């Protein structure tokens, strides 16, 4: 297998590209999930109990 200047083989690059999105999705899913949970919690426990307005 030919080596690039960075010393990584094409196989190693392909494997990294294949595995990296898993970590990115875990991090993004956690942060966005926490954001949604916080929004829903304020909606259910603060916003709705404060009553109708218009």
């Amino acid at each position, binding site marked *: 297998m030919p080596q690039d200047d960075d010393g990584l083989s094409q196989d190693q690059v392909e494997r990294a590209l294949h595995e990296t*999105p898993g970590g990115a999705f875990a991090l993004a899913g956690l942060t966005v999930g926490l954001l949604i949970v916080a929004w829903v919690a304020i909606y259910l426990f603060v916003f709705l109990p404060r009553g109708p307005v*218009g």
Partner: protein
Amino acid sequence: MTDASERDVARSELRWGLITIAAVSVIMLAVIYAGVVMHINPPSNVERIDPKGLHLSAEFTEANLGTKVEANGQITARIVTTQFAFVPRCVILPADTPVTLRLSRPDVIHGILVSGTNVNTMVVPGFVSQVHTTFRKTGDLLMPCHEFCGLGHSEMLATVRVVPKSEFHPGPDGRIACAAK
């Protein structure tokens, strides 16, 4: 990048796109539910009034301010916001009853919120701000000005006194004011 990698990336982006669409859809449905079912909407009354003659107009003359039960049974509290006071400083309203707050001002932009409720509106010169609500808890609720209106802004406070329906006794003219505590 190989074709397989390109496909992996495209699939990943598609999945993440679906997740974000689902999250936004949940929030939109919750907002629509609050508006349509729970009647929680931004106050949207557009009603003009001459700010120069506010105290001379029929509705916002001093004698007509405060809480009044109208002939049709509707309970309305009329309040003038000025630099740097609310007139009157206290309005009394019944709990668990639809009520209307009507506010206007002769000078600059003010804003009000009633603590612990969703009541929150700007009070803009030349317009009447109107908010319909139903108070669910009794007690003295703080109503501060929340729009910086000058040096005395921080002193600009009023009280919404929410009492049980059984303790809400307007006079023969339909008016009721906060009793001194």
